[in-house]
């Protein structure tokens, strides 16, 4: 034991001599997490990070056997699922962690929203977080096609066709996504490139900025907590108290992933046939369902506009407003309570839940 300790100390001294670690140790020792009745929400950022790490790990493992291309993709996943040792496990975990990643990120986003933690000086942390959420949806959309099965093929056709309905930029965007006018092998190559290179690259940079901002500014305190006298503020050291709790939760999540992957493994379905009819039950991933379902309620024409186009533009505007909330919520920035923001958030959650259920059942 003392040998190990010795080696560790020698390594530390070696680095300390060159990098002056005491600054860093001092900084980490000063990190505190506020303790209050809403402290539980602080964990969801870390949980999202955990799922991202799982995605990178399992994604790299899948890359060792996956082959992009309309003649190879489906077969290579069949091979992963049936022949590769634990291939079914790796793919199922990748599928489940993708869903839980989005879920954890959405919970994290809403908790930050309701605590109004986006207020000055954390506007940029909010913006980088929202960018990562959009990227996560991009990961979901691009990854969905990669198995090249019937469901994914038609869902991608529908999804990219909806994007194509956006005025002016829609058509070029559709061609950019599809790599041509139709969903073909070219689309598979493109979405594969987005999924494994472009998006991870951008995501990693944005994540880095997000984490640096949090280190620089410390963890956000709720409005009421902020106004307490310093003595009455209950806190917990980040190292090791909060970190150990975080790690315990990560372990719980890993177990959850294993259970889900074993009992509900990922399905593959039938290989896509560009000259076959669409099967019944084409649905996007659950996190797109509320948008997809609401678009159905728009009539074919509203005045001179196509109903669907108007719907897409309205969602675009809503997302833009949401992304920019730290900049137009001036009341919270002044340190006052802004009830409107809270009601808007409750409305958004109700809307998403109701339309998701409708989309699921209908």
């Amino acid at each position, binding site marked *: 034991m003392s040998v190990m300790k010795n080696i560790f100390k020698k390594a530390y001294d070696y680095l300390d001599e060159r990098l002056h670690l005491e600054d860093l140790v001092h900084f980490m020792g000063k990190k505190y997490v506020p303790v209050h009745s809403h402290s539980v929400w602080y964990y969801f950022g870390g949980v999202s990070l955990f799922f991202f790490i799982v995605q990178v790990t399992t994604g790299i493992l899948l890359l060792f056997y996956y082959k992009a291309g309309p003649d190879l993709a489906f077969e290579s996943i069949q091979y992963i699922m049936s022949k590769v040792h634990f291939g079914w496990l790796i793919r199922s975990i990748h599928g489940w962690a993708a869903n839980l990643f989005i879920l954890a990120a959405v919970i994290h986003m809403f908790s930050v929203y309701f605590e109004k933690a986006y207020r000055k000086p954390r506007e940029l942390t909010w913006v980088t977080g929202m960018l990562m959420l959009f990227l996560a949806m991009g990961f979901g959309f691009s990854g969905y096609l990669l198995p090249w099965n019937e469901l994914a093929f038609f869902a991608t056709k529908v999804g990219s066709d909806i994007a194509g309905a956006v005025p002016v930029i829609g058509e070029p965007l559709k061609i950019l996504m599809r790599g041509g006018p139709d*969903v073909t092998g070219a689309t598979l190559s493109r979405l594969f490139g987005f999924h494994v290179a472009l998006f991870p690259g951008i995501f990693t940079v944005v994540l880095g900025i997000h984490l640096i901002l949090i280190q620089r500014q410390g963890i956000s305190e709720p409005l009421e907590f902020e106004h307490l006298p310093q003595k009455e503020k209950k806190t917990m050291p980040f190292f090791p108290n909060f970190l150990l709790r975080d790690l315990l939760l990560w372990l719980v999540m890993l177990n959850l992933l294993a259970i889900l992957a074993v009992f509900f493994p990922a399905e593959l379905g039938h290989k896509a046939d560009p*000259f076959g*009819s669409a099967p019944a039950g084409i649905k996007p991933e659950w996190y797109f369902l509320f948008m997809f379902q609401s678009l*159905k309620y728009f009539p074919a024409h509203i005045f001179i506009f196509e109903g669907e186009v108007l719907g897409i533009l309205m969602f675009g505007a809503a997302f833009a407003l949401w992304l920019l909330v730290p900049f137009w919520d001036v009341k919270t920035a002044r340190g006052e309570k802004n009830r409107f923001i809270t009601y808007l958030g409750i409305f958004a959650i109700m809307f998403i839940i109701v339309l998701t259920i409708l989309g699921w059942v209908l």
Partner: protein
Amino acid sequence: MSDLDSNQNRRSFLKYLLSTSLVGFLASVLYPIISYLNPPKQNEVEVSTVLAGKVSDFEKDSGKIIRFGNKPVLVIHTEKDEFKALSAVCTHLDCTVQYKKELGLIWCACHNGKYDLNGKNVSGPPPRPLDVFAVKRQGDNIFVSKKA
């Protein structure tokens, strides 16, 4: 002109030169990348007529999708022994339609769009009718061609 003025002039000239060359540099980098992303137009073989198959390939009261160039076309052999051919691409969101025997209609499974056998959109979200193709029966062969 004083020294200061000429310095100022030289500075603004250099600024102008540098910013123009920066724009030129960015354009020369971005233009090839954007062009690269725009996929080349495939020289589509202009198909005007396609042999869909033999009459015996099409069961009565059923539909089958054939390739017309690189587009799917639905060929229906109706109960009344007629042949009809329509574009199989749903006008709503690009899914591929099918002949629904029980309804005697063309049906899109994605969003429950329905068309009659002449391609007219009769219910659900499709905004436009399906394009109709001409069918010719020559002996035992069925030919599908674009309508003039």
